[in-house]
């Protein structure tokens, strides 16, 4: 059986080159329009993680880890968590924890509206996406190194 290192066959690699950027773009779209259409931070974060996992499954783990290394993934996850907490604590300026402190909430049905909700969506998607990618990278790296012994 072929080893895991070169990745998958040529057809899979060609299709992956064409579609992995579109999957990432679709995930970013779902995150940014979370307050207007169904979706939100959780679904968008999982889709962003799926695009990097697609890259790792098709090309082997070195190519994917060159794009996002594990240390950088954990830094991005911590950044998302700190951003979410700081938005919550900044609500103290308006009255209480998690207060929606933008006074002008914008016009509805537009992209820049609804106060802190888009910022919270971005923070959640960073956290969920980077966390799930770190879980998958740890499970796959463990399997490959165990198989070589």
């Amino acid at each position, binding site marked *: 059986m072929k080893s895991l290192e070169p990745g998958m066959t040529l057809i899979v690699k060609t299709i992956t080159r064409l579609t992995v950027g579109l999957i990432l773009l679709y995930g970013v779209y779902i995150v940014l329009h979370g307050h207007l259409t169904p979706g939100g931070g*959780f679904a968008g974060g999982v889709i962003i993680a799926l695009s990097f996992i697609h890259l790792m499954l098709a090309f082997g783990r070195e190519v994917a880890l060159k794009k996002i290394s594990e240390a950088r993934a954990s830094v991005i996850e911590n950044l998302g968590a700190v951003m979410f907490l700081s938005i919550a604590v900044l609500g103290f300026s308006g009255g209480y924890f998690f207060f929606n402190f933008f006074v002008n909430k914008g016009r509805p049905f537009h992209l820049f509206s609804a106060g802190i909700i888009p910022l919270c969506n971005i923070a959640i998607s960073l956290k969920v996406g980077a966390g*799930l990618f770190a879980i998958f990278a740890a499970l796959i790296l463990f*399997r490959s190194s165990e198989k070589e012994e």
Partner: protein
Amino acid sequence: MSEYILCFTLFCIGLYCVLRKRNIIKIIIGLGIVEYAVNLFFVLIGYRLHGRAPILAKDQAITNMVDPIPQALVLTSIVIGLAVTALIVALAIRIYEKYGTFDITKIRRLRG
């Protein structure tokens, strides 16, 4: 009423799989089925017949919407279920590396 009974049947199938099977991967599959049944039950409670999805559209009156609170609770529950499944799979991989088998009766008898 029949929908609630079918949902409880799905929960019982998952519960039977967790209690009776001897392979760890089967136990993980049963746990996943139990979690699907619980999420479905939450959303079934908040459904209104001939209701609308809780997304506002332009120039439409706010009448007859389904209950949005169970949907908000289930949204986080789905992602948490995935994280717990990943954790159990990591434990199963470690157990296989140490004992060489997925059978839980053999794991109890070996003193590793």
